C-alpha cells in the first residue's frame, strides 16, 4: 500500500513521451516528497501538460516509469486516480448544483458514501470556510469562491497528491492570497501539491520549482536557487530567458527538419514563420 509516509509521492525515472517525431517529455527524473508544494513551470509546449497527463494516467509514457503514491501510473491507473485530486483552470463545477451538492457529488464519485461522507465533508467545509455558502448555486458564486469550491471538490477524498493546473487565472489578488494560504494548510496536513502557473509571484511561493524547456528538465530547486543558477534577478527573469531560448531552438529545429526532409519543407516552413 501507499501508506509508507516517508516514501516520495511522485517518482519518475527517465520518463519520456514521444508524439510522432516530437519529443514532448525527454528523460524526466523527478522526486516529489510528501507535503511539498511543487511548481512546474515552462513556456507553452514545454511538456508540462503532457507530464501531468502522464501522472494522471491519461497518457501512456513511451518509455521510463512513473509512480504516484506508490502506484505505477500506467499499470495501476485505477489506484492512482483514487489518490489524486485534479483542479483545472475551468474548475469543472456544476453551475446548477449548490455548493453542498457539488461537494457531495465529487466525493461520492471518489467512493465516499453515507455518514462517513457527511462527517468528512462537514470537517472539510469548515477547513475551507465554505460554510456560509453551502446552499448557494455554484453558478452564482464569484471567481474566488468558485476556485475555493473547486479546490474543496478536488480534495474532499483526501488525496495524496493534488494537481492544480493554472488554478488562479482570473481571480482577484485577495482571493489568490487566501487560496495560497489554503494550499499551505493542505500541504501541512500531508497533501502534496503539484501546481503549474504563469504567475511568477505564485511560482515564488512554491517550495521547489522545476523548469521544463522543450521536454527537458533544465532547472530544479528552491526558487532562489533557480534564480541564482541562471544568474537572473527573479523567477520571471528566468522564465523570459527560457522562453526566448525555446523560440530560437524551435526555429532552428524546424530549419534542420526542413533541410533533412525535403518533403516536409513547406509544412515546417509555414510553422516556423
Amino acid at each position, binding site marked *: 500500500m501507499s501508506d509508507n509516509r516517508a516514501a516520495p509521492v511522485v517518482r519518475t525515472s527517465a520518463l519520456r513521451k514521444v*508524439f510522432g517525431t516530437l519529443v514532448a517529455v525527454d528523460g524526466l527524473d523527478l522526486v516529489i516528497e510528501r507535503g511539498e508544494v511543487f511548481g512546474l513551470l515552462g513556456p507553452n509546449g514545454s511538456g508540462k501538460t503532457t507530464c501531468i497527463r502522464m501522472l494522471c494516467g491519461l*497518457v501512456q509514457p513511451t518509455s521510463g516509469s512513473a509512480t504516484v503514491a506508490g502506484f505505477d501510473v500506467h499499470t495501476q491507473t485505477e489506484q492512482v486516480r483514487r489518490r489524486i485530486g485534479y483542479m483545472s483552470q475551468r*474548475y469543472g463545477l456544476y453551475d446548477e*448544483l449548490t455548493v453542498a451538492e457539488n461537494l457531495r457529488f465529487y466525493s461520492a464519485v471518489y467512493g465516499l458514501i453515507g455518514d462517513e461522507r457527511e462527517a468528512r465533508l462537514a470537517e472539510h467545509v469548515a477547513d475551507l470556510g465554505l460554510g456560509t455558502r453551502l446552499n448557494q448555486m455554484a453558478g452564482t458564486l464569484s471567481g474566488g469562491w468558485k476556485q475555493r469550491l473547486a479546490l474543496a471538490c478536488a480534495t474532499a477524498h483526501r488525496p495524496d497528491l493534488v494537481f492544480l493546473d493554472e488554478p488562479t487565472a482570473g481571480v482577484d489578488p485577495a482571493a489568490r492570497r487566501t487560496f495560497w494560504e489554503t494550499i499551505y494548510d493542505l500541504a501541512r496536513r500531508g497533501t502534496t501539491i503539484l501546481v503549474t502557473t*504563469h504567475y511568477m509571484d505564485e511560482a515564488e511561493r512554491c517550495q521547489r520549482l522545476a523548469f521544463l524547456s522543450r521536454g527537458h528538465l533544465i532547472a530544479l530547486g528552491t526558487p532562489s536557487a533557480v534564480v541564482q543558477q541562471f544568474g537572473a534577478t527573479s523567477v520571471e527573469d528566468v522564465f523570459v530567458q527560457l522562453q526566448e531560448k525555446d523560440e530560437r531552438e524551435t526555429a532552428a529545429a524546424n530549419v534542420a527538419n526542413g533541410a533533412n526532409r525535403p518533403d516536409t519543407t513547406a509544412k515546417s516552413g509555414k510553422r516556423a514563420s
Partner: protein
Amino acid sequence: MSVTMRVRAWTGWPMLWKEFISLRRDRLTFALMTALPAIQLVLFGYAIQTDVRKLPTVVLDESRSSESRALVQVLANTDNFRIVASVPDRAQAKRWIERGAARVALVIPPEYQREIKRGNTGRAQLLIDAADPQSSGAALSGAQLAAQARGAQLLATRLSLAPPVEIRVRPWYNPAQRSATFIVPGIVGILLTITMTLITSTAIVRERERGTLEQLIVTPIGKTSLMIGKLVPFLLVGYVQMSVVLALGRVFFHIPIEGSLLLLYALALVFIVASLGVGLLISTVARNQVQSMQLSFFFMLPNILLSGYIFPRAAMPEPAQWLGALLPLTWFLEILRGVLLKGVGISELWQELAVLTVFAVLLLAVSVRRFSKTLDSRDSERRAASRTATAVGEGREGMGENARGACASFDGWSVSRKRGEVGVSV
C-alpha cells in the same frame, strides 16, 4: 466487499443523482420536456387537419323547387359542405369565393326540377375554389357522393327497384377518419426522437464545454458508469413524455388504445436506445451546444418528412421510401399505430422489432466507441501530438493557450484535428 456495499459504492449512482437534480433545475430542458408534448399535441393534433370538412358553400338556387331543396340537403348531409348563404346571382357567388368567404358555390338552374320530372337529367353546377388541392378534392368527392346518392334515390322511386349495386365502405381502425387519430400516436415517436437526440446530445456537449467531463475523466469513475449516468435519466424522461402524450391524446383526442400498453412500452425501449445512440453520436461530432442543436435539427427534418409521420410513405417516390426506411422512427411509427389503432400484438410487429433492434445495436456500438475515444486519450496520442506541435510552433502566445490546448485534447477527434491544421498553417 458485500454485494450491497458494492451496489452502494457503484460510481454510477452519484452520476444519476446529479443528473436528475440538473434536469430538474435546468429550466430550458425542463420546459422542453414538459411543454413540448403539449405544444406538439396542439400544433399537430388540432392544427394539422388533413381531412377537409365543412367547406363554406353558397347556394344559387334558381329553381326554387322541392327537387333543388332536396339536392342542397343531400349535399349538406355529406358533411363536406357547410351552407353559409344563399345568393341571388352568379356575380354574387363569384364575389363570395373571391373574398374567401366561400370555397364552393352550388348553382341550380331554373329548369332543374322540370328536367327531372320529364325524365331527363337534372343538371346542377358546382364551382370550386381549387387553389388548394386538398379542399377541392374533398369538394369533388362530396359532390360525386351527393349526386350518386340523389340519383339512386330518384331512380329507385321512378322504377320501383332496389339499386342493383351498392358498395358499403367500412373504414377500419379510424372509422371517423380523423387525422388526429393518425397524427397523435406519431407525436409520441417525434417527441422521443427530439428528446433523445437534441436534449441528450446538448447535455453531453454542455458537460464537455464546461470542463466537467475533463474533470470526471481523472476521477475513478468508470466509463460505463459515466455513460449510464448520462443516458438513463433521458430514457426515463422519454417514458414520461410518452405517457403524457398518450394520456392527453386519450382525453382530448379520444385516441383509441386497442392493443397492449405494456407491449408498446417494451417496444419503445428499443426505439429509445436507438435514438440515444444517435444523440450520443451527435455529441461526439459537435464541438459546442449550437452545433449539436443544428445537427439534431438536421436529423429531425427527414424524420418529420420521410417517416410517414404526416405524409403517407406510400405516396412518396421510391428513393424517398428507402431513405425513410433508414430512420428508426419509420419503424416505430408502425409499432405505435399498430398497437394503438389496430390492437395488433408482437406476432404482427416482429419485423419492425427486428429492424429496430439492428438499428439500436449498431448505433449504440458506434456511438459508444466514438464516445469512449473522446474520453480515452490513450487511443488518441496523435491528436495530442498535433496539439503539442501547435503549441511549439506558436511559441509565445496567450497564457490561456496552454490550458485550452489541454482541454481540446480531451475533446475528441474533430477539435484536435482542427487544431492540428491550425498548427500547420500558422
